[in-house]
């Protein structure tokens, strides 16, 4: 039975999505995997098995829709600490995510030298970053400059939160990138908060995308709870940047459904009603409802994905827990490259 036979009404609908059936499946599975990993990570933290957790719950659609617009293995991703789902798109496995959380010796993101969620794997073109916000936007501009000088037709996508757009480095990066018309997408996940501060304390404008006007830069603001809309916005921007059309500032309007991190108690500052309102817009629920309504997949298939993901997370925790920790002296070494 071909896909077409199975779901006669879905084909045209899928065409409207600009995404193949396979891509839609990947989209759902990746969002779900990110969500389940984050949930489990928080649980491990609460059990005392991981000293620190910071996650991207609520931002899965914003992340997966954007990351899927890139060419994996060619384009660069310069992520920030919530971008677990982007890393999954770029090839990270559940096991690896857990290695990173548990700061295991073989964690490819630095072997426990950094806090969890500070990713970077050269072979995947995911670029290492620290915790200081917005510094990475300049690294992204630098990579894009180097690529342009090398006539390498790649695109760099870099992320930060809306709070981080107040930093000087944000301004310097956008200014530089636009002057040199670099192939870089500045992707801001506006989740409504910078820790406890809501957006009106962080910026005097309604939309992060408005910041582009100071640089005469292309910009867009998209519903970041809708993975398909995100893809449909980011993909053309990436294509345009690849063709030499210059940088883009894209704002994904989403919401931080969790606390800032495992150290934060968001009940101190977040109105309950607001959280409930946004919970209604959960990006994964929305996606599932939409593909179900449009009959893209039969419900069984979505359930299968759910089961697969659950098993994957369970396996990852068990496996990663038994991996070796770094030795004390591993702290030394690699200070300089010979």
């Amino acid at each position, binding site marked *: 039975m071909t896909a077409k036979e199975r779901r006669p009404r879905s084909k045209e609908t899928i065409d409207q999505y600009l995404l193949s059936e396979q891509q839609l499946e990947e989209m759902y599975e990746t969002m779900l995997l990110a969500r389940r990993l984050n949930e489990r990570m928080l649980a491990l933290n609460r059990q005392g098995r991981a*000293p*620190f957790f910071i996650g991207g719950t609520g931002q899965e659609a914003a992340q997966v829709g954007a990351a899927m617009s890139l060419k994996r293995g060619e384009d660069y991703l310069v992520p920030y600490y919530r971008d677990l789902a982007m890393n999954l798109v770029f090839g990270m496995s559940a096991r690896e995510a857990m290695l990173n959380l548990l*700061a*295991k010796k073989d964690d490819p993101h630095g*072997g*426990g*030298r*950094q*806090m*969890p969620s*500070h990713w970077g794997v050269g072979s995947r073109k995911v670029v290492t970053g*620290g*915790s*200081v*916000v917005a510094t990475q936007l300049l690294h992204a501009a630098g990579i894009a400059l180097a690529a342009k000088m090398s006539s390498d037709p790649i695109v760099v996508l870099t992320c930060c939160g809306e*709070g*981080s757009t*107040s*930093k*000087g*480095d944000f301004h310097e990066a956008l200014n530089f990138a636009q002057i040199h018309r670099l192939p870089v997408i500045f992707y801001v996940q506006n989740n409504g908060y*910078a*820790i*406890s*501060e809501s957006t009106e*304390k*962080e*910026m005097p404008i309604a939309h992060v995308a408005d910041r582009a006007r100071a640089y005469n830069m292309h910009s867009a603001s998209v519903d970041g709870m809708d993975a398909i809309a995100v893809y449909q916005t980011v993909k053309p921007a990436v294509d345009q940047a690849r063709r030499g059309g210059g940088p883009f500032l894209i704002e994904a309007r989403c919401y931080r459904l969790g606390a800032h991190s495992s*150290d*934060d108690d968001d009940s*101190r*500052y977040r109105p309950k009603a607001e959280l409930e309102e946004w919970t209604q817009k959960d990006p994964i629920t929305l996606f599932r409802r939409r593909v179900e309504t449009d009959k893209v997949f039969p419900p069984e298939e979505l359930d299968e994905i759910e089961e697969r993901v659950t098993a994957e997370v369970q396996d990852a925790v068990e496996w990663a827990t038994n991996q070796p*920790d*770094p*030795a*004390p*002296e*591993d*702290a*030394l070494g690699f*200070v300089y490259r010979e």
Partner: protein
Amino acid sequence: MAVMTVLEAVRTALGEALDADARTFILGEDVETGGVFRATEGLKARFPGRLIDTPLAESSIVGVSIGAAHYGMRPIAEIQFADFIHSAFDQFVSEASRWSYRTRGESSLPMVVRTPWGGGVHGGQHHSQSIEAYYTHLPGLKVVAPSFPADYRSLLRASVDDPNPVLFLEHKRTYRLIRQEIDGAAAETVIGRSRVTRRGGDLTIYAYGLMLHESLAAAESLSAEGIECTVVDLLTLLPLDVETILETARNTGKVLIVHEDTLTGGFGGEIAALIAEHAFEYLDAPVRRLAAPDIPAMPYAHAMEAFFMPDRDKIATAARELAAY
């Protein structure tokens, strides 16, 4: 008499400062809801309009404080973690520390920048740093780094009252770890003075922050072995209390300088150099420094973090060797 943690002492001093002088106010990221360590918790309700949540931009926090202090206010800025202060470095180097000098005292900047520093909290590379080495090389600035709750309270008050810019370092590992009985009135501690916390004739240990507590613990256990240490709590790192440093070095003839920061270029070099120049004739042993290894930053994973941090055992080992020299 009340028992206070370091954190409570800081919060108490902030409340007292806001109470005492209408020109004081607090600004920083998330300070209105108490800040990530809750140092400012409850203050917004008590002092409406005098806590200001700033955008996430450290240079602006320091730069705006400079302007407000020049105007005549007494801003108390919070940098959420010392690790995030670096983008404000220029405002310290080029502006704040030179203000009095370049105006020949016509204008000074009565401002305090508080920030949690130090490791041992699984904070990894960007939530564990020691930053004193950069700031103790800025004449015009004062750098204060207490160890005990009573000193946190009195030195924070003194910092707010000081007409000069003060960088006030709060060791985050000690926030809830260290408690002390505190009198109703703030203890009399003065910026620019260290304190001899313990006296012993065999050697002197110099430390501050968490390492002061580790040094005291080491001294305690060494005493059981018959090695008696003088322990100096430096308290103010700039301007340094050179007199107390040299006096204790001359008395014991052997010195051990301890800090949590990495060795090369660390603040310990200055103390070692002072002693090697001005107490040379009294020295009975090499001037010894104990510090973290020269790697870029504190690792996150537990075993590596512990390897990085000096502690009571490493201090005791170094002191034992020195005593035996």
